[in-house]
């Protein structure tokens, strides 16, 4: 094999101190997760020593009715709140992109609030809101008993969607819209055939973001959920408080796999992760505003 030339001045990735650093950070970020996944297959309750491969903790986790119920609840909440967040977020982005109106800066700023407000503050606000203003009826049939949690999740998810969609619309050539209108397309037709196709990638990124945010949320759900509306993170929390068990490892492994699959799908649809960093675009936002 030909000897590779010495690293160029800015090829930091090919310098060993940085490689070492990256490897260290990689181990730090991944070793706990990998250990968790590996030991979910270990045939021993306590020991770190490998006692043989088993799937019995998966069987246990999958036969744990309350864990499965919590998991189904989480997925349902994530799906519904993603759907609502997409609509509300896209509308908010359209309003800000399309119109000049009094109070626009105020609306824009208020929309950033759920993104920057500490989770705990939103959590207690939702607790008080559903206790005092809009008591969510007890004992509703599934999935309507999840309503309060879904509302809370939409409140913190849709501003993220709005940010992602708005960033995308900034690159839209307004002349296209005018051309469509000049050629006789109705408002609805223009929206459907000209604006939506341009918006589509950001809608996918936004959906991914909203889904993950909802699935991930513990704090806000913790304050809005009742005894019969337990989500997966809340259930795992109550299990973790007692002890570390391979059953939780198994359930966590399943969720990690789901996350990886979702990320892979989002990347497949989106292309380059550098542009898929929807969460990143959103996170970057409050400080990028002039």
């Amino acid at each position, binding site marked *: 094999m030909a000897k590779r030339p010495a690293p160029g001045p800015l090829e930091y990735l090919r310098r060993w101190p940085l490689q070492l650093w990256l490897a260290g950070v990689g181990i730090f970020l991944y070793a706990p997760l990998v250990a968790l996944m590996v030991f979910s297959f270990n045939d021993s309750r306590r020991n770190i020593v490998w006692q043989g491969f088993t799937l019995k903790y998966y069987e246990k986790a999958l036969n744990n009715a309350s864990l499965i119920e919590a998991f189904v609840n989480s997925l349902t909440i994530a799906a519904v709140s993603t759907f609502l967040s997409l609509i509300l977020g896209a*509308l908010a982005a359209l309003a800000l992109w*399309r119109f000049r109106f009094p109070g626009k800066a105020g609306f824009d700023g208020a929309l950033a609030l759920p993104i920057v407000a500490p989770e705990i503050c939103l959590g207690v606000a939702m607790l008080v809101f559903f206790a005092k203003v809009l008591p969510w009826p007890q004992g509703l049939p599934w999935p309507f008993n999840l309503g309060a949690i879904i509302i809370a999740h939409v409140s913190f998810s*849709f501003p993220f969607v709005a940010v992602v969609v708005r960033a995308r619309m900034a690159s839209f050539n307004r002349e296209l819209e005018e051309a469509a209108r000049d050629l006789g397309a109705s408002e609805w037709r223009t929206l459907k055939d000209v604006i939506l196709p341009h918006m589509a990638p950001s809608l996918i990124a936004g959906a991914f973001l909203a889904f993950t945010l909802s699935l991930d949320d513990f704090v806000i759900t913790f304050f809005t959920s009742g005894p019969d509306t337990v989500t997966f993170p809340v259930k795992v929390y109550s299990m973790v408080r007692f002890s570390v068990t391979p059953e939780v490892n198994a359930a966590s492994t399943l969720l990690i796999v789901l996350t990886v699959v979702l990320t892979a799908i989002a990347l497949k649809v989106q292309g380059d992760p550098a542009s898929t960093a929807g969460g990143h675009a959103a996170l970057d936002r409050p400080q990028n505003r002039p």
Partner: protein
Amino acid sequence: MEQHWKSAKGLFGAVLGPPLFWLVLFFMIPMGIIWLYSFGENRGLTEIALTGTFSNYLRALDPLYLKIFVKSVGIAGLTTLICLVIGFPVALAITFAPPKAKTWLLLAVMLPFWTNLLIRTYALIAVLRTEGYVNQSLEWLWNGLGAGVGVLGVGALGPFQPLELLHNNFAVVLGLVYVHLPFMVLPLYSALDRLDTSLLEASLDLGAGHLRTLLTIVVPLALPGIASGVVITFIPALGSYLTPDLLGGPDSQMIANIIERQFKRANDWPFGAALSFLLMYMTFIAIALQAMLSRRRREPG
């Protein structure tokens, strides 16, 4: 050109109406109630009288709570600093990586970020607890060492004492760094990625070393990005609830844990509301400081 709202009132209403309605009803009003409660007093079990009192805020100045505020800021600040030190070289390496490696490295940083926070915290518990992976490995090493020492006939090492890694402040900071590292790396990367590399090359060509180039060229140019990374890491770290709750000990309570206790156990909503809004104001101050910093950078001069 943006359209004036009056020229298409119907469309404007249809587009702005739903998100505005949702934002007001399900965000502004709940927050407003908390804000009002922070000036209220408990009357009986469930009644709260809005008396306009500042006593809840004054109570937060009690040394007991003031200490927790100071400690929370300290822990969040330390977390941010460690994230910056760990994350900067990572962001630098990603920025100047070849496109393919860049894609994979970004993905590697983002994947834990998408993984459930509770699972990541739980994974850390499994690593750190008394019977955790770290202690088990250390015990194994210790016993091996003990056997070796025994063969040499020097004497026994004594039983292994597991390290207390969990339920203390160390675990909280470690957990917060673990969780927030991607928050730091991604904004740093996007700032460094926008740098004009010819400036760096010029500096290196003209004989400045890597460290000097880094300190005198890269850091000043990337300062707005560094500032946003710092704020993005600091804000959630300051308000974190789960990490101190699960990894911390009795003296690692942070603001969020105190707020939770007022609402769920102590049933002192007005005081909890006041603490929530103090946390909100601290968040706003952090954002305002950062905005001021990046604005000053943007102005020529």
